[in-house]
């Protein structure tokens, strides 16, 4: 995660910078004494998060929020409690920290950030999967190019010099390798879980011990591929 700190007080920026060090994957890429400089910076640099002071001379944090197009997530920092309710009207405002920010309160903010970014990540994955629903792949069967939609493919199995592609309707045998087809498949939807199997993990019915059930097919999960599969699942 990349973030910037915007505050006209050097001491306030120093505190946020120090607190940010308690979040291991958070990198503070720049600091700004006013919101206008931050806006200019954001025109050419993308960040995931802004720690934004509200009370700044000339161009305030509120002006920034109302001006910025498609802003990243924002944590407001201020000595003024009065703006808190209004601030939560903006869906990109994750938290509202009243100065001086305590280490304990920052830990709560850290947890909120983790939740917010986790949700964004899931939404991104879901969108990527949805986008591939109608995308397709052509396979050569007896000199005929057959179109298969990614959403229809359930699994692919290596069979010597061939691969077998199982769709909801049919099983196709194609002269190719798992490595080759893997390069053509969207990562957001497909995953190799065994040296002989790639699965469309949106079609998983259940996972038990070291196997995955897709429709009536029980597919083994190799020990080395299991961690990645577990990481990709939205586990409760």
């Amino acid at each position: 995660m990349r973030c910037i700190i915007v505050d006209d007080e050097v001491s306030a920026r120093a505190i946020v910078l120090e607190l940010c060090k308690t979040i291991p994957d958070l990198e503070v890429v720049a600091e700004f004494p006013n919101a206008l400089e931050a806006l200019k910076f954001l025109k050419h640099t993308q960040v995931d998060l802004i720690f934004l002071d509200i009370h700044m001379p000339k161009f305030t944090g509120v002006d920034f929020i109302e001006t910025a197009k498609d802003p990243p997530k924002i944590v407001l920092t201020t000595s003024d409690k009065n703006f808190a309710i209004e601030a939560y009207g903006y869906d990109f405002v994750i938290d509202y920290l009243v100065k001086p920010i305590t280490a304990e309160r920052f830990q709560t903010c850290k947890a909120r950030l983790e939740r917010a970014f986790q949700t964004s990540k899931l939404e991104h994955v879901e969108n990527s999967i949805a986008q591939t629903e109608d995308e397709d792949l052509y396979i050569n069967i007896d000199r005929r190019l057959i179109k298969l939609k990614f959403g229809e493919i359930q699994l692919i199995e290596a069979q010597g010099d061939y691969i077998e592609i199982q769709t909801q309707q049919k099983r196709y045998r194609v002269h190719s390798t798992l490595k080759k087809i893997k390069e053509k498949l969207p990562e957001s939807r497909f995953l190799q879980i065994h040296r002989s199997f790639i699965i469309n993990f949106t079609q998983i019915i259940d996972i038990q011990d070291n196997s995955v059930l897709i429709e009536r097919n029980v597919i083994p999960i190799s020990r080395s591929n299991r961690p990645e599969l577990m990481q990709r699942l939205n586990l409760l």
Partner: protein
Amino acid sequence: MTEQPNLDYIKEISGGNEDFEKKFLTIIQTEFPKEKSDYIENLERSDLEESAKIVHKIKHKLGILGLTGGYKLAVKYEEDLKHGDTKLKEEFYQILQSVEEFILKIA
């Protein structure tokens, strides 16, 4: 007994990082005198709106230096100034003096 500034908050934030503590105190030693003189200048000019904005910044430092009572007074004084009321200015000035003395002492 009057409330005295302390470094408890700074030590809490630093988590024992002495380099940060030194750097941070240097920042306060630079920032605070400037804010204090700006505040006095604006008050003398009867620019109460601008004075309120500086009190807003100073109150953050009062919180940093553990002046809970001073912070509360600054919150009230900031609002009063916005409404043209300066009756807390002497009390606020005493707080500014104690912060200044503290900053000089730790320099």
